[in-house]
């Protein structure tokens, strides 16, 4: 009998290959959706079994034993990825036009699951690369330049990880997580691995996982790669694939946490290495959120927003307290569901209108009511409005940051949240409300499979928002202790209490009152869009700041000094310099003059001769 873990791992890949090979419209979509549904079904089946104890499986391939384990942590991550993967498959049923995309989208699905389930570095690295390769192929299809950027940064990350794995292997002689963990734990007391070596391994892993998570300053690939691919796939790309990086950071704690603590010690009562992670997360949150606010393209906006939200997860993990882990893990789930939902909504908008810029949008709420409702749920969840999953997870992160006595980091989250509100409001208004451009008059509702995909992700947003206790209950079991107290509807931490049900009831009541006032009390007047922002001043064409165009330009001008620095441009320039240098080197030496080549030969011979003499 084939093992359940292998079914979970390889069902998407096999389905992808079959869909690709058959390539019959209709059948390949069905196969793809079934393949994407299998992991989620299997994970649901194994849920109770996982809580009793981890499920192990190992296969031996050419001398390497690959170990897979479904424990409470990998189950959580795999379930989140499978949920988003299933929604992606439904979305792709209408947005993808080629079987090529099915093959690589489902291949990256398998890669992500493999990363979560692997219990040794051989399998981890193999699946990590499978995931990178497949997502690279997805981006390559649409945009060569962006895919190259993604590829180069991923390769840097992969080599960093390979070197780190090699160093760990040289020091501990083990490749499986359990042995490495034990060896490093023992080594913390003996100290045979010096502080400098530990620092190098740590930095290399930070690079490797940071690239995939899109952590500052390695985030530059993300905006391009997220926007330049099938948007349904981006739901998985940004919702689940970026979590592999976050999972890596967690793995750092599991494998080398104690050793890192022993090597670096503490700083103001915080673990030094966790402090670094927390600040990487905080910088990512602030910078990506500012950049997201300034975007004029829907896809770019959500791409930066996605980078920023993964920053929250890193920040929460960096707090190093169990409450921080609970918050970060909860945010893994809520980010996956609301950001996946956002991308599916974007996919629907782009599919139906063919436009990506805010300036071409408007008034779509009447034309695409269901998509609008889904977009609204995503907006509420991302902005952290109470009865949504996004609020519960962010609230936990706030609580954790305050409890960990890191005021500056907590400030970064607050700033990031304010900015998140600023950009989602713009999405909400510019796309759905206001005047409709005349060429969008005959836009229709998104097709059914896409709507199903959205619903799959919208339901967890609401359910886990109203009953966050379901998630925290599981997280308590995973983290081994009563980290977050309360029942299904109430979260209790040492510093605060959040009653989701009460908030929901109050909110619904408030909305009902507001609705009654709107229906019976208010008199509405139709006004041009630009009226609201110009305060009665005449609008000039070069400073026409409507919500669809340059809405946050004053902010961009205020930030002008900082916006002159860009890591994206820095890397591009670095690449340019390297290219120019190589070019001038080539022209200087390879000059077409026979006698120069004779000189090189003579000089080399002379050096060799002297070497022999000396």
């Amino acid at each position: 009998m084939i093992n359940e873990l292998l079914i979970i791992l390889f069902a998407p890949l096999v389905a992808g290959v079959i869909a690709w090979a058959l390539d019959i419209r209709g059948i390949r979509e069905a196969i793809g959706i079934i393949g994407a549904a299998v992991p989620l079904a299997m994970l649901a089946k194994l849920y109770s079994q996982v809580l009793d104890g981890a499920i192990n499986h190992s296969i031996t391939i050419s001398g390497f034993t690959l170990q897979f384990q479904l424990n409470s942590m990998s189950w959580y991550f795999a379930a989140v990825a499978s949920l988003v993967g299933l929604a992606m498959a439904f979305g792709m049923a209408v947005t993808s036009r080629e079987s090529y995309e099915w093959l690589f989208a489902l291949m990256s699905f398998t890669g992500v699951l493999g990363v979560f389930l692997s219990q040794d570095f051989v399998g981890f690295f193999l699946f990590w690369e499978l995931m990178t390769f497949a997502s690279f192929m997805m981006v390559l299809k649409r945009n060569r330049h962006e895919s190259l950027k993604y590829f180069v940064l991923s390769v840097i990350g992969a080599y960093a990880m390979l070197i780190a794995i090699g160093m760990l292997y040289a020091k501990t002689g083990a490749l499986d997580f359990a042995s490495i963990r034990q060896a490093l734990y023992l080594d913390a007391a003996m100290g045979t691995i010096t502080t400098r070596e530990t620092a190098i391994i740590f930095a290399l892993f930070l690079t490797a996982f940071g690239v995939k998570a899109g952590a500052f300053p390695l985030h530059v690939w993300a905006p391009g790669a997220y926007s330049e691919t099938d948007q349904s796939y981006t739901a998985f790309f940004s919702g689940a694939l970026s979590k592999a990086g976050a999972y890596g950071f967690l793995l750092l704690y599991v494998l080398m946490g104690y050793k890192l603590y022993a090597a670096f010690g503490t700083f103001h009562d915080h673990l030094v290495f966790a402090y670094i992670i927390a600040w990487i997360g905080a910088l990512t949150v602030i910078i990506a959120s500012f950049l997201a606010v300034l975007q004029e393209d829907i896809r770019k906006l959500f791409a930066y927003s996605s980078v920023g939200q993964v920053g929250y997860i890193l920040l929460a993990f960096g707090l190093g307290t169990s409450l921080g882990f609970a918050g970060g893990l909860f945010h893994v789930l809520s980010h996956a569901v609301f950001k996946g939902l956002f991308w599916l909504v974007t996919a629907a908008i782009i599919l139906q209108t063919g436009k990506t810029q805010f300036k071409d949008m408007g008034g779509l709420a009447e034309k695409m009511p269901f998509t609008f409702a889904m977009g609204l749920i995503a907006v509420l969840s991302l902005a952290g409005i109470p009865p949504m999953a996004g609020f519960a997870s962010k609230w936990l992160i706030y609580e954790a940051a305050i409890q960990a006595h890191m005021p500056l980091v907590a400030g970064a989250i607050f700033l990031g949240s304010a900015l998140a509100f600023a950009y989602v409001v713009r999405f909400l208004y510019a796309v759905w409300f206001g005047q409709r451009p005349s060429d969008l008059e005959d836009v229709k509702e998104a097709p059914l499979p896409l709507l199903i995909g959205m619903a799959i992700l919208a339901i967890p947003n609401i359910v886990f928002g109203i009953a966050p206790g379901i998630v925290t209950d599981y997280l308590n079991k995973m983290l081994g202790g009563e980290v977050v107290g309360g029942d299904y509807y109430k979260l209790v931490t040492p510093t605060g209490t959040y009653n989701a049900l009460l908030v929901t009831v109050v909110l619904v009541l408030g909305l009902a009152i507001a609705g009654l006032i709107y229906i019976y009390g208010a008199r509405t007047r139709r006004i041009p869009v630009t009226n609201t922002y110009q305060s009665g001043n005449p609008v000039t064409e070069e400073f026409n700041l409507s919500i669809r165009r340059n809405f946050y330009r004053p902010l961009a001008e205020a930030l002008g000094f900082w916006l002159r620095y860009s890591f994206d441009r820095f890397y591009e320039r670095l690449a340019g310099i390297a290219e120019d240098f190589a070019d001038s080197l080539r022209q200087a030496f390879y000059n077409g003059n026979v006698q120069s080549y004779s000189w090189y030969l003579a000089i080399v011979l002379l050096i060799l001769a002297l070497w022999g003499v000396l």
Partner: protein
Amino acid sequence: MISVYYFGAITLILIGLYAVLVKKNLLKILIGLSIMETGVNLLLVSVGYVAGKSAPILSEGIGPAQAVDPIPQALVLTAIVIGVATTAMALSVAIILHEKYGTLNVEEIRRLRG
């Protein structure tokens, strides 16, 4: 004390190398190559020389013990043939270059390429 044969052979090689590196006329470079080749051959032969021994031909009164090392001589025989062949080919290339470009200056020829 370095043997005069070695000294002479290496000097010939260096003279040839000098011509190859510095002279601009293609024919002079080829002459330099020929000189270098002669130097190399001389050096090889002189490596096999054993003082007081005769030519390595087995005949009356001369056994293997009385002959100089025959291997460098065989090598040099081969090298001479190769050298002549390369020189002949290089010269024909020089003729073609002169027909095509009207000059034998290597820098001029380089400037005209492409």
